[in-house]
């Protein structure tokens, strides 16, 4: 099996994780499953970007392209009943938890078949069925909320784990540290996943953070943390397994800094003045999470044709979702007044 490509430009690429875990080898089934799930997110996001350009999607739209290995790898470490919560760059998380691409896309287009009947939009979507708790538009608000999900698990005495995802930008919010304190104090089973994509909107980590090693952000609370190569789905899964085991054993919270990169702008209206095209291209070329799996599968004698078939299948799902999202009717006007109270 081919080794994942090494980063050669640490200044402009997500560095390799320095965590102690070595990427576990995946079985072929795991590789295929990861490939398919990551491809679904990528094609979905490409389509969402396209629909945004056509005016079918409004408001803010934050694409997850480049970061797919994180949610897919973490999801492989979970069991049914574990909870997931994240911020506004949430489409990938929703698809990874198994939410229906049609419902997600229809929410992006503001239609009645959307997960929130068109009342949430890109940043505010939920699925009780899939234990996905949003989709939150206020940077870092999901961190105390995810801590509260863990609180509920501990209160009930079950062994479920809550995953609270947030970015390198959110990691500078005060409520993150209020949460860290309570989570460790009360030994809450929550994994704080810091998706360090190197830019808080347009401000690079080095311009916004005094401590750029986010795995160390829990040190003063005695929360263990590690940096993970968030471009390698196997490394993510391995780190996820370790963190999940820690939490399920009742040892309290865990921090995973996922070193990753977002290929697209912060949102669709990003002027892209804060980084070079070359920087983006370099990561895409050297470290793409999907290409890494594809290359391993090819090296393991899987045919290009078989891989193309997977892509075609995924494209079909995404096209159907886009089609549904554009033809599903808008919500009934009466929907304006529902769900304010129950």
């Amino acid at each position: 099996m081919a080794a994942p490509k090494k980063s050669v430009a640490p200044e402009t690429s997500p560095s390799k994780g320095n965590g102690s875990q070595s990427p576990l080898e995946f079985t072929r089934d795991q590789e295929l499953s990861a490939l398919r799930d990551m491809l679904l997110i990528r094609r979905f996001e490409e389509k969402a970007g396209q629909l945004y350009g056509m005016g079918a999607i409004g408001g803010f739209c934050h694409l997850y392209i480049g970061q797919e290995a994180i949610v897919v790898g973490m999801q492989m470490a979970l069991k049914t009943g574990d909870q997931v919560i994240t911020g506004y760059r949430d489409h990938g998380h929703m698809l990874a938890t198994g939410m229906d691409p049609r419902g997600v896309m229809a929410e992006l287009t503001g239609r009645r078949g959307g997960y929130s009947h068109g009342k949430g939009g890109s940043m505010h979507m939920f699925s009780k069925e899939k234990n996905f708790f949003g989709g939150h538009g206020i940077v870092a608000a999901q961190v105390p909320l995810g801590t509260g999900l863990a609180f509920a698990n501990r209160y009930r005495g079950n062994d479920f784990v809550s995953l609270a995802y947030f970015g390198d930008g959110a990691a500078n919010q005060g409520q993150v540290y209020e949460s860290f304190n309570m989570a460790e104090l009360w030994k809450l089973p929550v994994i704080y996943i810091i998706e360090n994509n190197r830019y808080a909107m347009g401000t690079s980590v080095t311009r916004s953070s005094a401590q750029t090693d986010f795995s160390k952000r829990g040190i003063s609370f005695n929360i263990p943390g590690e940096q993970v190569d968030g471009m390698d789905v196997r490394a993510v899964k391995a780190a996820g397994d370790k963190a999940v085991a820690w939490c399920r054993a009742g040892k309290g919270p865990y921090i995973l800094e996922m070193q990753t990169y977002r290929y697209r702008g912060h949102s669709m209206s990003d002027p892209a003045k804060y980084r070079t095209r070359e920087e983006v291209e370099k990561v895409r070329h050297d470290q793409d999470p999907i290409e890494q799996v594809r290359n391993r599968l090819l090296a393991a004698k899987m045919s290009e044709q078989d891989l193309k078939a997977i892509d075609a299948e995924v494209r079909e799902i995404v096209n159907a979702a886009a089609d549904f999202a554009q033809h599903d009717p808008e919500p009934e006007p009466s929907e304006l007044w529902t769900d304010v109270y129950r």
Partner: protein
Amino acid sequence: MPIQVLMPALSPTMEKGNLSKWLKKEGESIKSGDVIAEIETDKATMEVEATDEGTLGQILIPEGTADVAVNTPIATILADGENASDLAKASAPAKPEKAAESAAPAAEAKSTPAPKDASAPAAPKAAAEPDPEVPAGTEMVTMTIREALRDAMAEEMRRDPDVFIMGEEVAEYQGAYKVTQGLLQEFGARRVIDTPITEHGFAGVGVGAAMAGLKPIVEFMTFNFAMQAMDQIINSAAKTLYMSGGQMGCSIVFRGPNGAAARVAAQHSQDYSAWYSQIPGLKVIAPFSAADYKGLLKAAIRDPNPVIFLENEMLYGHSGEVPKLDDYVIPIGKARVVRSGGHVTIVSWSNGMTYALKAADELAKEGIEAEVIDLRTLRPMDTDTIVASVKKTGRAVTVEEGWQQNGVGAEVAARILEHAFDYLDAPVARVSGKDVPMPYAANLEKLALPSAAEVVEAAKAVCYR
């Protein structure tokens, strides 16, 4: 000359206390810093330290005496060289020495005031009108509002294992205002949870737990501190049901003292009635009577929506009659006519009712019969009860401790205009807190708050008297 030890004030709102125990005997020598007595308020038992040295000459107030007013001489201390024969001098109106200081840890964690003492005067007899929610012949129990709140929480916690309380000092300290007294002992640390001082964080943890299906009661030591948690209350708690298309709600109660206490100045005295009651997705309750505190808090805990439960520190020690019913739950969203009258409608809630009811008594002496409505719930607001009254009286005055601009009184006035304009014989008058940050000085603070006299004046003005 012997030194008088005076009954100390242990909090800004304390007027009386019980002298529960003397720890020194007459004739014993006392050093500065010695604990000489224990004083009990309804909130806590505190130790009294001597600030002077000498011999305990005479105990003036025996232990076990209840309701000793602040600044009453409780003992005399003889200085070196003095003896019992000098005691007579002390009984002359001695220039008051400084009161002994409290040795116990300050009750005012985070500089919040301690509550009014239990012996505070009972709330004015409000219920001229029978309470429609209470069957005739129901036995009534007199209890303080503090106890009514505690009982409401305890009953709901017994009833539903998903209900728990979290907040600063709710457990081991027994509540910064003693509202959660005894809950830790009954329900244990799993369900009565002391939080770090981290309002934004624990409000969010509470909301997250509620999203997972638990029913948290989040106590803010005061709502002034909840401004730190405002984003979680509004963006996370109030909006999630809507944003999730009805999938994910949040059954949670945020409760604690709101509005002015006594002498705690601008940052600890704000009334948030108007702020919260503007937000769709929240229910906002602000009761006045002990019975309403109990019945509405039970309703709030059971409600599947986020509820803001605004209490008033000045009322905690007030007593009132609470129906002795197994399950006394008052529906949210119903105002109550607490006094009938045909000349003018006075609309208020929470501590504003203190002024409204006093004013109604005064007005009656002058032949003006005021109908007094206690809103009890600010959102949803019971427009029907207000409008029905105004259609009868043709005149209305609103009374609130909060600021006038964009206040709840303004909303009440607008609803009256929308629904009863043709019935009005005078413009609606608003009595409110003055448009300034709350001052510290006692006289200025009094001026900043509304008064019964202002309500009387406004009522007379709308009656053209």
